[in-house]
């Protein structure tokens, strides 16, 4: 073998493309398109993820896709993934049963900056399936309640039947130390909560902008409007955290698919400060209109 100065072969699973095995130990159909899987690594090792990080999940023959952890790191004996049936791989994952195996590698990326969020009020804004990665953060905060100030959860879904994690949602709602605001865009006869997109309940939330960090995950179209609401509450741009979606093929900042100007969403993100995105033209869809700033 020839030594080259700046080349260092690495055996770490997060640097290689070959996954390790994880076994499905629980499965819950949450909606027609969404399934929740509970998994354990075959090695028994805890993957030690942070809320907001993602895992590359494989079914041999179908391929590999990035999926955010939706369980809290405080759940150490297993982890959970929420899978939306949108393609060959995710549809095949809907057919998994307890006892079946998947391949996993990771975790990858920068999640929510927990250390910096401790002691502060946390405003969580979830739109649609954005609740999945945020469930990891919400349950972490719920389990470490004294480490944080206020815990505020704002969750908007399209219809009542699209709402995910109903057991968790009920548990958050029942806690006196979490404030919850729920809405749906298209209510039905069963819905007694607010009507409108997530910014409707968000507008009514009163916060102390100096003490608050916002964690926001939702469809691409949502970010700009949430930014406008948060800036209208006098929040600092640095205290607004957005988690972005791109097509991660490698998770190591190499394959190029997730590049956002000079950043790799898979490595520099997926959680970004709003200030990081403001100067970058390929994140223009999240920018609040200029007049909404300050």
């Amino acid at each position, binding site marked *: *073998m*020839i*030594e*080259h100065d*700046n*080349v*260092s*072969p*690495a*055996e*770490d699973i*997060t*640097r*290689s*493309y*070959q*996954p390790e*095995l994880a*076994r499905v130990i629980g499965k819950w159909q949450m909606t027609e398109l969404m399934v929740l899987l509970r998994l354990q690594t*075959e090695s028994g090792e805890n993957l030690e993820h942070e809320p907001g990080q993602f895992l590359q999940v*494989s079914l*041999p*023959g*179908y*391929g*590999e*896709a990035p999926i955010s952890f939706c369980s809290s790191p405080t759940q150490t004996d297993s982890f959970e993934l929420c899978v*939306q049936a*949108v*393609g060959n791989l*995710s549809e095949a994952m809907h057919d998994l049963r307890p006892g079946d*195996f998947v*391949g996993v590698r990771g975790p990858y990326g920068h999640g929510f900056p927990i250390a910096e969020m401790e002691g502060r009020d946390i405003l969580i804004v979830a739109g649609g399936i954005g609740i999945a990665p945020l469930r990891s953060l919400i349950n972490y905060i719920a389990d470490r309640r004294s480490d944080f100030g206020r815990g505020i959860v704002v969750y908007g879904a399209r219809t009542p039947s699209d709402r995910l994690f109903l057991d968790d949602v009920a548990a958050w709602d029942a806690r006196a130390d979490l404030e919850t605001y729920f809405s749906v865009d298209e209510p039905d006869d069963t819905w007694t909560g607010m009507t409108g997109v997530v910014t409707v309940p968000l507008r009514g939330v009163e916060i102390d902008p100096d003490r608050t960090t916002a964690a926001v995950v939702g*469809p*691409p179209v949502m970010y700009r409007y949430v930014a406008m609401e948060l800036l209208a509450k006098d929040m600092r741009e640095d205290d607004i955290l957005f988690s972005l*979606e*791109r*097509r991660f*093929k*490698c998770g*190591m*900042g*190499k*394959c*190029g*698919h997730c*590049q*956002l*100007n*000079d950043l790799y969403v898979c*490595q520099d993100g997926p959680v970004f400060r709003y200030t990081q995105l403001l100067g970058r033209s*390929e994140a223009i869809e999240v920018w609040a209109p200029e007049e909404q700033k300050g």
Partner: protein
Amino acid sequence: MPTELVMTHEAVPGFFGRLIDEGPVMGPRERARQPGFHHFDWLDSADDLVLEYQTTTIPPKKAFFPPRDVLFEFDLTDPPEFRAVRDATPFTLVGVHPCDLEGLRLLDDAYAQEPAEACWPANRARARIIGVDCTPDEYCFCTSVGSCHSRAACDLFLTPIERGRLVEVLTGAGEEMLRVSDVTEASDEDHAQAQQWRDDKEAAVTAGLDASPAEFADLLATGDFTDIWHEISSRCYSCGSCNTTCPTCFCFDINDEFDLGLTGGRRVRTWDSCQLAEFALVAGGHNFRRLRWQRVKHRWHRKFDYLYREFGTPYCTGCGRCSRACTADINIVDVSNQIIEAARQGVQG
């Protein structure tokens, strides 16, 4: 200064013949059905090797990052089995031009950036590399990006002189490749001839960027050249040839293949191109670089702005391959100079 020796014309075939006897050697050889065109391929004998050749269509990065690379194999057993299939056979890559040596160095840096991926360095560690000096054509602009005299990544480097090749011994591995019978001491005249070759080569480079890499990076970063991107992209077919021929492009896709028996298969990594329409498409149908001009702009920024800032050197070696390959005649030097001129005149989109 590295040791410099002389390999006479008579000694060259014996030297390369012995390397081929020792193990696999990849180098420039004439394409079987296209006389006068050369490509990097495995050499059967020293007669196959062409040391004076015009730039190949596909750069030698393919020795370490093949266009199609099996990452691992799997069996659809319960549980499934994943099997590493990395080839660890040592080999020698010969006949690499300075711009392509620089390309290998740039990919060393890119793939080693934390978290370093495992395939590139494992393949790089398998190989010894011998560089050769070259004769530029009208597409070459290595003098603009600092790759003209690169000795990066190679163990030996050969420069033509009257009685053979001046051999720069750059590493211990290079020293080990040479036997006493291969080389003799270099005279002052040999050194002078090699220097003359290098001077002539530099003078023969006629194309060039009108700004330094540092200035070009700043101009790109601060200007808005939307009109130019629109004009260039109106000619671009989004075929991706500029990416597939580029010695510094390192993007890829990963997909699974089943065996016909459906009992197993393999995960395969293939070269990808940021110019293809679906490159930035995500599940759900949102495309973050849907418009062609956004993709054309991305390529320039990635080469001359983003990666320049990350690694301190443009991710362009001045080899000219993208311009040669472009069916729409989009020339990297012309477009770059158009941007430089517009920025300096304050004429922006």
